């Protein structure tokens, strides 16, 4: 009376549809990872090019060096990576991309720091350390503050590092600034380490101070 064969066939069809959905998901997920890799490669080339340029012309004219564009792309990559972490699953590929991203951030930071020293441009840097290993509510809130801050001041450079990133360069950064995982989130502004949550107003005041320096210095250099 019951057509068991039909129940089985329908099961197989449904399973095939499920597998197809998962295949599509993997396919598009792979495309997204590919897109992230492309952006990273481009940034890597840009950084390498700036470094080479910097090394070639020791007497580099400060006007020729503009790092703002670079950071903008890094920020976009950061956003996409963060989204990817939540939506593409915790895969080795995403973790690798994140390591690479941290490395690019450090390189960009070092280069920008060198340029700012050479050209006596004092840009507003913020290094931000957070964790994803455990639930860190303060980190989430600090992240919101920094996003808002960066939207307000596009010139501001925020380099964010996941404390748990398995990369020696990141670990060195943690050692240099003596960041402890019990005191996260942590911010580094002008070599000063701030731990715990800091509000938008608080950071804005600090950043504005940095900006003032930036506004006055280039004129002074020109006068010289």
């Amino acid at each position, binding site marked *: *009376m*019951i057509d068991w064969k*039909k*129940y089985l*066939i*329908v*099961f197989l*069809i*449904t399973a095939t*549809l*499920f597998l*197809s*959905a*998962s295949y*599509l*998901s993997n396919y*598009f*997920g792979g495309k*997204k990872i590919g*897109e992230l890799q492309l952006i990273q490669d481009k940034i890597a080339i840009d950084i390498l090019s700036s470094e080479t340029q910097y090394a070639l012309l020791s007497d580099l004219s400060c006007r020729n060096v503009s790092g703002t564009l670079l950071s903008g792309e890094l920020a976009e990559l950061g*956003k*996409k990576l963060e*989204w990817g972490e939540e*939506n593409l699953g915790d895969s080795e590929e995403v973790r690798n991309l994140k390591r690479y991203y941290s490395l690019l951030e450090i390189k960009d930071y070092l280069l920008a720091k060198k340029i700012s020293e050479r050209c006596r441009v004092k840009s507003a840097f913020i290094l931000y350390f957070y964790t994803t290993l455990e639930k860190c*509510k303060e980190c*989430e*809130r600090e992240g*919101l*503050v920094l*996003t*808002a801050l960066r*939207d307000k001041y596009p010139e501001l450079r925020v380099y964010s590092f996941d404390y748990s990133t398995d990369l020696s360069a990141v670990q060195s950064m943690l050692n240099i600034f003596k960041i402890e995982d019990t005191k996260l989130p942590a911010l580094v502004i002008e070599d000063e380490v701030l731990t715990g949550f800091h*509000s*938008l107003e608080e950071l804005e005041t600090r950043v504005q101070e940095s900006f003032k320096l930036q506004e006055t210095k280039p004129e002074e250099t020109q006068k010289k």
Partner: protein
Amino acid sequence: MSSISNIIFYIFIFSTVYAQVFLLVTFLENRKKIVIRKGSVKLSSYPAVTIVVPCWNEETTVEKTVDSLLALNYPKDKLKIFLIDDGSTDSTWGIISKFENYPNIKTFRKENGGKFTALNLGLENLKTDFFGGLDADSFADSESLVRIMSYFEKDPSVMAVAPSLIVHNSKTLIQSAQKIEYLMAVYFKKMLGLLGAIHVTPGPLTVFRKRVFDDLGPYRHAHSTEDMEIAYRMQKNNYKIEHCNDAYVYTSIPGTVRKLFRQRLRWIYGFINNTIDYRNVLFRRKYGDFSFFTLPAGIVSIFAVSFLLGRIFYNLGNFLYSKVVQYQTVGIHFTASLNNFDLFFISTKSFIFLEILIFSLVFLSMILGKQMVEGKWRPSWNMLYFLLIFSVIAPFWLLKAIYNTIISEKPAWR
């Protein structure tokens, strides 16, 4: 915790897709058998049929209902009509009394006892071999009865035949949504009929052989869904129920969300409680697809919708909480990313594709239902209204029906 939730979520999605594919395969197997007959059908003999119209405060529609029965393309001497006033407090009795002089109409007046008691009064007075009901808010198409009777002629083992219910009044948006839902129900019903797995023999013009009631007894209260219980009882006794897709009965449907809610609450409550009453029918080989497909699919859909609603509320709660945290932290702030939309941020998780698949299958069901009734399958805006309206409000009557079952509170008729 979230991984368990995800597993349940995917099991429910799998079951939903399974049920839809099952019906679709049934359709493909039988598509040649599904025809819409044009014009009038001739029978080799016209057995006598009694149609009972139970009325309770139906003054606005009952006259039209009786007129539709009088206009049926069926020999007048073979068609008996019982008009039964189940203790109406409006002018219903006055209206049906006007039909007293018709030779084939008999009127009855009784104290209010519920629809099943009115139908049973009709059964007590039944002298014909066939019995049908017609709710007093529904109107039979003139060809409906003869087309239904052709199923009995073709197959002597058929014990009941249900018609296609078509929405009579679709003025409001909520009615337009139901209109397409009823068309989709025709498709589901036809497929269940082909599987021998129908679980409702609706009040509007389902016709039974008298033997059904002789063997199985009269209608029962059955949680205010006597038309569902009789179908369960028939399935339990392996009595064949067919669906006649080209027999049309036009039925009045609720025009407001409130009324629709009450109607659906009664239906779902009836389904849950009749299924509980007939739980020993579940997963028994001798009860066929009714036991392995219809009932499990209904049960799973109730749990699935409740679960999905819970999940939606949970996600909504999380989203609102994150917005509150954002507001507390940085005030009202819109990120620049909204301005430059990027395809990258469109989710491509596998459940997105599965949801698209489910919606496509639902659309296909609506189109096939439309095809089975109207002979054309043009998509309409009503399909969108249905998805939008029902996906928002249906979970609530489901949950309320579950809640009422748990605290055993019976829903009112109207």
